[in-house]
């Protein structure tokens, strides 16, 4: 029932080089409601909201605000139309006070020149009170905890006259207590007649706060549901999808030796809060262990701890029965751990390096590439690079071209070529097909299966349940920093996995 839409986006299409970020999206926000926008990272949520906020123009599609068609030239247009955005990364000046930050860009003045601080304080205080958002207006921003800083962002948007507030992953930086406070504030906003768009990939969150939820997946709308008519399991399924499963040649393998053994592993996240709360895992040779779970339940931290990029606070990691808990990333690479990172642009590749230079990263200090451990042998490296370019069909003009110029799928081929070609014993593949098109996705998956058939142990972390389903010999489910279940894919179903991923008990 579309009674009174505050925002209506119709047929929004947005492409970036090699990526279809928004594929014909229709999105409606009812006035006075809290509208959830749910989807995995890379599903297109942020792009859609950036279009709404005027950060980039859509390739196609229309936007209506309060029933009138509008063209968003820039955020200034959006602000004028009463749309405010609270970004994931705050846009505050740390050394200025709360009040100064709120009025920044719209300073109240006396005689058009002098800053009228009294008027400012009065105005800001009024809006604090009316929304029950308590903040010390004279405190400098850098002295405040993240939760309060976010409150300042909200106040800033309201001060600029926002009637519709977009909140991009607002809880991702918050502690659970701060999140509870935020929810109270969001409900208060609704009571005052404001409209809120709440972007998240956390199921429980959207269920508890939103009136209506739109689910995005791979740039498309999967559906829109009323909160009363749905449940965790259904949302989880909508979010991670149930596409046709690719068929792979997964011959049954006999190798049952344990390659990776993880014992009650604990680690902290970037904020110093427990992210891994005692993980136990085993990955065998010739086995793909799929780790399913909604993102943000410790998967990233698990990968970083296993590759040596994050410190283990408790527990042990064993590779082929040798303890590597305290080993450096370099030692782990030497011992045969390969890593296909979640964020290939930031962590997987050095974009200003050539294809060749990227292909030897991690093996660059060993023969045959390093002579006497010092000199790089360009003859060897370029021979090696040419071989990998042809083996992995990397579309590049030459091995000397910078990877910056390659498309997303080709870049992932470079990462894959590098990581799979150094005879790994264990491959840790994190979201290996995120953002890739169908062809590249299939290539990556078939390569992983090929490595498994050659005897590699593979730990596959994916937010895409289809992927887990298609590739895994066993499925581990992560929830809130723990492995809550390990399932045989033959003996479980989507219902059960969805429930487990949402923190429920399996039947």
């Amino acid at each position, binding site marked *: 029932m579309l009674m009174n839409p505050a925002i209506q986006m119709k047929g929004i299409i947005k492409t970036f080089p090699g990526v279809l970020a928004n594929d014909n999206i229709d999105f409606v926000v009812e006035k006075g409601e809290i509208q959830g926008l749910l989807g995995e990272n890379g599903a297109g949520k942020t792009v859609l909201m950036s279009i709404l906020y005027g950060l980039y123009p859509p390739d196609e599609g229309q936007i209506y605000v309060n029933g009138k068609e509008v063209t968003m030239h820039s955020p200034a247009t959006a602000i004028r139309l009463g749309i405010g955005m609270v970004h994931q990364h705050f846009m505050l000046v740390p050394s200025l006070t709360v009040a100064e930050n709120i009025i920044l860009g719209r300073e109240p003045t006396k005689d058009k020149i002098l800053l009228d601080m009294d008027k400012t304080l009065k105005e800001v205080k009024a809006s604090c009170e009316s929304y029950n958002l308590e903040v010390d207006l004279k405190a400098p921003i850098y002295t405040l905890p993240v939760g309060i800083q976010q409150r300042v962002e909200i106040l800033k948007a309201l001060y600029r006259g926002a009637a519709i507030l977009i909140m991009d992953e607002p809880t991702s930086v918050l502690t659970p207590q701060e999140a509870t406070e935020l929810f109270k504030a969001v409900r208060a906003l609704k009571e005052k007649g404001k409209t809120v768009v709440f972007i998240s990939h956390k199921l429980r969150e959207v269920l508890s706060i939103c009136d209506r939820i739109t689910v995005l997946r791979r740039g498309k709308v999967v559906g829109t549901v009323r909160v009363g008519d749905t449940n965790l399991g259904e949302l989880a399924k909508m979010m991670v999808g149930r596409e046709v499963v690719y068929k792979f040649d997964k011959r049954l393998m006999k190798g049952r030796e344990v390659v990776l053994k993880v014992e009650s592993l604990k680690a902290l996240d970037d904020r110093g809060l427990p992210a891994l709360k005692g993980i136990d895992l085993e990955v065998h040779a010739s086995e793909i262990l799929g780790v399913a779970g909604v993102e943000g339940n410790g998967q990233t931290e698990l990968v970083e701890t296993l*590759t040596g*990029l994050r410190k283990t606070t408790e527990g042990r990691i064993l590779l082929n029965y040798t303890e590597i808990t305290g080993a*450096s*990333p*370099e030692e*782990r*690479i*030497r011992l045969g751990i390969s*890593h296909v*990172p979640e964020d290939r642009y*930031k*962590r*997987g*590749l*050095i*974009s*200003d*390096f050539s294809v060749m*230079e990227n292909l030897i*990263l*991690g093996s*660059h*200090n060993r023969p045959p590439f*390093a002579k006497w*451990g*010092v*000199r*790089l042998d*360009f003859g060897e490296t370029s021979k090696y690079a040419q071989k990998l370019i042809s083996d992995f069909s990397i579309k590049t003009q030459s091995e000397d071209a910078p990877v910056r110029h390659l498309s997303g799928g080709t870049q992932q081929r470079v990462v894959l070529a590098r990581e799979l070609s150094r005879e790994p014993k264990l491959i840790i593949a994190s979201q290996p097909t995120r953002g890739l098109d169908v062809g590249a996705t299939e290539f990556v998956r078939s390569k992983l299966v090929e490595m498994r058939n050659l005897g590699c142990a593979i730990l596959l972390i994916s937010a895409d349940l289809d992927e887990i389903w298609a590739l895994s010999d066993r499925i581990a489910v992560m929830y809130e920093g723990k492995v809550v279940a390990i399932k045989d894919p033959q003996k479980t179903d989507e219902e059960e996995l969805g429930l487990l991923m949402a923190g429920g008990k399996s039947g």
Partner: protein
Amino acid sequence: MEARGASKIRSWLKLGLQSMLPQIIAIFLAFIVGAAVLLATGHSPIDAYSAMLRGALGDIFGIGQTFTQATPIIFTALAFLFAFRCGLFNIGAEGQLIVGALAAALVGISFSGLPAFVHIPIALLAGALAGGLWGFIPAILKTKLGAHEVITTMMLSYVATYLTSYMVNYPFKAPGWVAQTVPIATSAQLPHILEPTQLSASIFLAVGLAGLTYYTLQRTTLGYEVRATGLNPIAAENGGVNVHREMILALGISGAIAGLGGAGEVLGVHRRLIDGFSPGYGWDGLAVALVGGLNPVGVLLAAVLFGALRSGGMTMTRVTGVPLDIVTILQALVILFVTAPMLIRYLLRRGGYKR
């Protein structure tokens, strides 16, 4: 194989020229604007520039002076470049140069009777070690405590300046009015290579070091790791590179290069340590590294340009009466245009030049 080698060299040359085009245009523009300044102040740009050119390259004395001035700047520019490739701003080359000079001078005056082939290397090594220490300290402060190297390298420069000033004014002051040490032993002197000018063998060291820097950055695992760290420390770490170790090495090496330059000044040019011997070679080095397009070959060319401006400027002033400040203006203009790549790119586009 032969043909492939030759064509590779040709393509490198072409690439090198292409990549230096913005710098060449910047220099050209600087001289045009400089000419306008000269005209506006009632001087003939043609007279001034030709006097400058004669002064810089017209006779043996000018050439010697040009390269003598260029030598320390090559060192400091290479120092800046090396750290920069690791993503670090070492703006303390001035101080590293000065402590290098101090250490070399101390070794130079403390020993006598050593053969030159022992004494010179020890003195140079002392300079490199002292400069290296001056780079190492900020590196440790950065990697262990998170102190930004721009602040710490600059602060340490002041420490170097005043420490050296104290040394030549008190404990190691030679008798007389001037704040300087006694001369170093003859066995520690680097030979002059273009009598009667002061040009010393230090320039061979500088050119050799430019080659070595290029080789290290492009052809060794150390250089690979340094560049990886500079371009993307997160991916480098993931690839098994110890990012902190690289930063410490890069700043240490950077300081050592500058320190070696200081040692070269003492052993080759002044043959003693004189208070305030550096008119800002460290800062010139930063500018030269930028003008040289942050590559060692470019650095050599840019350093010679800056050296020529300094030595030619003096002749210009003597002959035409144009104040020496025009040299400072020209240097500033070159830096301004080099650091304004948007302007240069616009000009290139207008000129129909496409990459």
